[in-house]
């Protein structure tokens, strides 16, 4: 069982989903425990895989589905699952987030999508299967299939909500399909020149046949890159994200918001480092010249739009777009530290976004609104929720000892070392915006001012609320515990950041990335 740990990662949720479909028709109450158990099993398998990858001498676990050998050059007869340290780390994050959300899902799913619980859990578990598979697969076409698995489940999960959600999903579907199809097209261009689909195999052929300057390869890179940028909601292509996440059912947004965009950034890193290779991605193409500037535009626009929002979920959605800008920037400043920051930020951003969305779900449940003006007195009413929520918020701002501080630290170091001042400035700017955003929220919650700044209270400490409205009234435990769990994960990763960074450094060691100012 141990040597197959990597296979158990997708076996658990896949069979769990099927079990939900079979059992759920009669006993919809069983779906919640089934999903929880299969997520628990999958998380165990993910942790085991990570341990194996750490302990193996080459720091990766290779698993060929179907038992084919890969000895021939180039590899690619069978489909390979490859868990190197990066893949295993991100997989564990995906599974961990899935586990926490599946614990959280009990009440919101029953209340928001009555009669559809089995369908919800089927799609939920398959979503996890798809996302975890994306992180592990070593085959470019298999990646496409898994992207579509994750995308289709995502459409279904979002559109389960209101009619408004369905309308938002349609846009998401059109853009998502364009993105995935462009990726598929790019893989075709790769295949026409290299004759293999295995990621390592492609890299071997590029090295062996000297395909650095081939126009087809350049176009393949551009198409794949463009497709992934659309899927990750990078700034000009972000239009689908806020509407989709804001109108989705609570559990859906808690699952999708932390994971989908982050996993796509992982795919981008995978493509640049493993498939095309550092030399091709950063030196043969012009991407490292213009991407940092696009990132600057993206972060500024997203931050300004976040500032204009009056609703928590919508504000968080724009923050995600800004965070995507951070991570893309960290990759394309082409620097060792920038890449460490980027990878670490994937992990920490997943955790803190999870925190924020879980918190927002609880707020929506108790305060019946996520509009800023409806939040007065919430701290007195639900202190634990607000603590969990603001741990996530402080992590987004980047206050120590939360994990957001450390990942941002590496991003800033990367920007400084590679002398990308524009990136640094824009990081500082967006940090300022986030400070404003979250302290404005704190103000709303603690003080009694309304939209026009008019004081509704009658003096110091008076919120203008009745006794009833400030009475201690926490959300249900099945939702509160996952939130606090997520908040503690944010803190724990922050405190033990060096261990995570060590693994990332081990992963990045073989790639010859510039560590100093030596930008070509």
């Amino acid at each position, binding site marked *: 069982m141990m040597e197959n740990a990597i296979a158990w990662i997708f076996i658990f949720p896949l069979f769990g989903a099927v079990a939900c479909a079979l059992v759920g028709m009669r006993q919809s109450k069983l779906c919640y425990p089934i999903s929880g158990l299969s997520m628990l099993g999958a998380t165990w398998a993910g942790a085991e895989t990570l341990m194996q990858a750490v302990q193996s001498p080459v720091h990766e676990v290779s698993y060929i589905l179907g038992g084919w050998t890969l000895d021939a050059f180039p590899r690619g007869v069978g489909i390979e699952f490859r868990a190197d340290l990066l893949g295993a780390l991100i997989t564990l994050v995906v599974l961990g987030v899935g586990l926490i959300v599946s614990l959280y899902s009990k009440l919101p799913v029953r209340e928001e999508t009555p009669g559809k619980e089995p369908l919800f859990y089927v799609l939920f578990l398959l979503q996890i299967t798809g996302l975890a598979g994306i992180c592990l697969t070593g085959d470019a076409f298999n990646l496409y299939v898994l992207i579509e698995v994750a995308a*289709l489940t995502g459409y279904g999960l979002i559109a389960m909500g209101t009619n408004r959600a369905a309308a938002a999903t349609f846009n998401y579907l059109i853009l998502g399909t364009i993105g995935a199809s462009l990726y598929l097209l790019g893989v075709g261009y790769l295949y026409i020149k290299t004759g293999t689909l295995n990621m390592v195999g492609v890299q071997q052929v590029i090295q062996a046949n000297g395909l650095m300057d081939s126009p087809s390869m350049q176009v393949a890179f551009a198409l794949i890159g463009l497709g992934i940028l659309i899927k990750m909601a990078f700034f000009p292509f972000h239009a689908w994200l806020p509407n989709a996440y804001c109108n989705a059912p609570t559990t859906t947004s808690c699952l999708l918001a932390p994971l989908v965009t982050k996993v796509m950034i992982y795919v981008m890193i995978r493509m640049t480092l493993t498939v095309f290779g550092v030399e091709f991605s950063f030196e043969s193409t012009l991407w490292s010249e213009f991407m940092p500037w696009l990132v600057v535009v993206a972060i500024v626009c997203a931050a300004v739009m976040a500032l204009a929002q009056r609703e928590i979920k919508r504000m968080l959605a724009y923050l995600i777009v800004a965070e995507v800008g951070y991570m893309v920037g960290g990759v394309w400043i082409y620097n060792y530290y920038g890449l460490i920051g980027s990878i670490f930020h994937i992990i920490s951003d997943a955790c803190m976004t999870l925190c924020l969305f879980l918190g927002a779900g609880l707020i929506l449940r108790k*305060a*019946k609104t996520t509009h800023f*003006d409806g939040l007065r007195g919430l701290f007195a009413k639900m202190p634990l929720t607000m603590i969990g929520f603001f741990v996530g918020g402080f992590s987004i701002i980047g206050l120590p000892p939360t994990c957001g501080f450390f990942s941002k630290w590496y991003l800033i170091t990367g920007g400084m070392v590679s002398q990308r001042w524009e990136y640094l400035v824009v990081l500082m700017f967006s940090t300022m915006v986030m400070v404003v955003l979250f302290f404005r929220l704190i103000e709303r919650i603690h003080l009694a001012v309304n939209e026009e700044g008019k004081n509704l209270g009658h003096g110091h400490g008076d919120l203008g609320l009745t006794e009833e409205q400030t009475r201690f009234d926490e959300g249900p435990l099945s939702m509160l515990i996952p939130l606090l769990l997520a908040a503690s994960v944010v803190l724990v990763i922050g405190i033990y950041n060096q261990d995570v960074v060590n693994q990332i450094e081990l992963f990045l060691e073989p790639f010859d990335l510039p560590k100093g100012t030596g930008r070509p």
Partner: protein
Amino acid sequence: MFEDGAIVNELLVERLNYFIYVVLLLIGLHAMISKRNLIKKLIGMSIFQTAIILFYVSIAVKEEATIPIYKAEHDPHGEVHHHPEKGGEEAEAHHGPVALKDEEIKQYANPLPHVLMLTAIVVGVATLGLALALTQRIYQGYGTIEEDELLTKIERADDRASQSPLKSNQSPSPKKAKGSATAKKATASPSRKSGSASQGKSAAKRKPAKRKPGSGGGKKA
């Protein structure tokens, strides 16, 4: 549209397949972006996907090659030997399947792109089915499948939904739980019937807007 002497000449004469695939792909992409009707967008999406499939299938073509199914002389269970079918062991004993010689590879088209495209077609039809369901849901909710009309209706609904809960609660007493419940409904589900909680002016405004979707579908020929 793509005037560039040498390239066009080369494309039209030598690589018509590649050229047509690009044309189809662009037709599909343009339809997805600029058509207002949602069904038209979906037709565009399907054209876009089939264009990509055409491209992959073109990769697999080899001149003078046949379809990727073994001819009788290469068939592991072929008619050449005298023990057709039956258990593998028996057949193997007399005439085991043999690997093809290198020069024989040219006789068959490349099977790999075909396999990939089978998967892509399936993914395409799955996406189409899901998108059609979404279209129906949108039509139920908003009574239109034209994007521009849809946008105005959604905007109107969003304006109602994003009102500050303070404002909508102000005129009656802010303490009533009923008021906040209405605000929640409007936030979470702007298009669902916003219930009985009478909100005076705003409710009166809401009603006619609600009715409209029905009248769109109710037209009789």
